[in-house]
Every structure is written in structure tokens, then in C-alpha cells.
């Protein structure tokens, strides 16, 4: 059952991504991208990251993609003729991206056991249950504190520094966006 759901959404995600790449209308591309993101959100939930799945929909689809659409509309570039590159580029794309996917997709062979074997100091100790103690602890924390609580605690304790950095990052982005986009400063 879980497998069926996973592969269904996986197929949807790939289809959405492919259409996003191939659709000549930017608005259509954005829509297809949206579908991919939805599919991914579903997969996140399936993989036990419920909060992230929801945030995915909220932040990505609800905020970021909307901004994209907004800019597309603002600039009124939707009706331009196809911006797909010519056949030479297509060939290069197929070759390069093909090689890339071949190299990266080699990761499909990973099973938990193999991952455990990679991480463990010696093959004899490659027991997933022991190697992945942190994962199990996190699941227990989720069970005990709920999906938000399980993430909130580390976010504001262990990951306090990066969290603060993101605030500065957002500040910089805001200043930058204002400086660049405002008509008169």
C-alpha cells in the first residue's frame, strides 16, 4: 500500500518536473512545478516528515511559487514564443543530464542495511538498529512531543546558530530586494 502511494506520487513528481521543464509557457511550467511540489509533500509525509510536508505546501507552493507567478505576470513574459533552446542544446542536455542522472541515481541501491554498513566503524557492527539510534530517538520524540515539538526543541537548542543566521539572511534578502526592485531609492 505504502509502496503504491510512494510510487504513484513519485511518478507524478517526475511527470510534473518533466512537464515543467518542457512546457513552453512559463505559467504552465510553474503549474507543473506546483504539482511536483505537492507530490513531494505527500512523499515527505509518507517518509515521516509530516511537518515538513505541510510546510512544503505552505512555503513553496503558497509563497515562493506565487511570487514566481506574480513576476511572470508582472513582466508579461508569458506570451513570448518558446524559450526552449535548439536541438544542439537538446543533445547536450540529454548527454550531460543523462550522465548526471546515471551517476547520481546510483544511490538507488542504498538500503538501510547498506547505509548502516557504510557508517559503522566495522562491518561486524553494521546493525541498523544500533547505527540508526538517532533516528529511532527522533521517532520516539515525535511520538512523545508531536511533530512540531520534536523539531522545535533541536531547532532552538542545537540549531540555534543557524536559525539566527537565517534571520540575518532574510534581512539581507529583504534589503537586497528593496534596493534592486524599488523604483526610487
Amino acid at each position, binding site marked *: 500500500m505504502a509502496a503504491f502511494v510512494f510510487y504513484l506520487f513519485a511518478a507524478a513528481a517526475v511527470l510534473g518536473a518533466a512537464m*515543467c*521543464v518542457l512546457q513552453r509557457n512559463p505559467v504552465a511550467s510553474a503549474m507543473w512545478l506546483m504539482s511536483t511540489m505537492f507530490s513531494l509533500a505527500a512523499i515527505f509525509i509518507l517518509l515521516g516528515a509530516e511537518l515538513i510536508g505541510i510546510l512544503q505546501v505552505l512555503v513553496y507552493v503558497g509563497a515562493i511559487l506565487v511570487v514566481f507567478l506574480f513576476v511572470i505576470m508582472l513582466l508579461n513574459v508569458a506570451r513570448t514564443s518558446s524559450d526552449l*533552446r535548439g536541438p544542439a542544446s537538446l543533445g547536450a*542536455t540529454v548527454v550531460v543530464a543523462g550522465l548526471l542522472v546515471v551517476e547520481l541515481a546510483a544511490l538507488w541501491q*542504498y538500503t538501510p542495511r547498506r547505509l548502516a554498513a557504510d557508517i559503522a566503524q566495522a562491518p561486524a557492527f553494521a546493525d541498523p538498529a544500533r547505527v540508526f539510534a538517532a533516528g529511532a530517538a527522533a521517532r520516539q520524540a515525535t511520538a512523545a512531543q508531536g511533530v512540531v515539538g520534536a523539531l522545535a526543541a533541536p531547532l532552538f537548542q542545537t540549531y540555534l546558530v543557524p536559525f539566527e543566521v537565517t534571520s540575518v539572511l532574510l534581512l539581507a534578502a529583504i534589503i537586497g530586494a528593496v534596493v534592486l526592485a524599488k523604483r526610487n531609492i
Partner: protein
Amino acid sequence: MPENTFLGPSLALSAILFSLGVAGVLLRRNAIVLFMCVELMLNAVNLAFIALAQFHGAGGQIMVLFVMTVAAAEAAVGLAIILAIFRHTQSVDLQNINLLRG
């Protein structure tokens, strides 16, 4: 340990989506679409994080949170830049944006 972690399939899907994003960057000339493809790549990476977070705890998920923030920040700045260039060239087609070369 959950029954079905989909580790391998998730990583493979992540790779495929990433590569599709890369292909989009290669194929498209519209700066906005290009940037959307980059977002697709980030999403693919997020999937990898989530898949791996099943084994290593909250770090992966928190990382995805940060990535989303970064994506938002990039989107803000990136779209501002695209607006700026549009003011000069009245186009977001990268083929027309090659004053700097050589």
C-alpha cells in the same frame, strides 16, 4: 525502524528530479523558468534530506526548513534581479543578455 523506508527509491527519485532541474536549466532561456528549475533542484535535495532523516534524526528535517528559508530569500533577491534586468533589456531571455563576454 519503520517497515518501509523507501531509502533507495527516494534517493533515486531525488536524483531524477535533480537531473530534470539541471536539464531545465540547460534547456530554457527564460530566466524565470531557469530559476524555477533551480527551485526544482532544491526540492529534489530536500527529498534526499527527508529520506535520510529517517535514520539520522531531526537534523535532516531541520535542514529542509533552512533550505526553504534560503529558497525564499533567493527568490526575493533573484526575482528582484530579474526585474532589474528586465528594465534594461525589456526581456528575460538569456540569449539577449550577453553584453559581457570574451
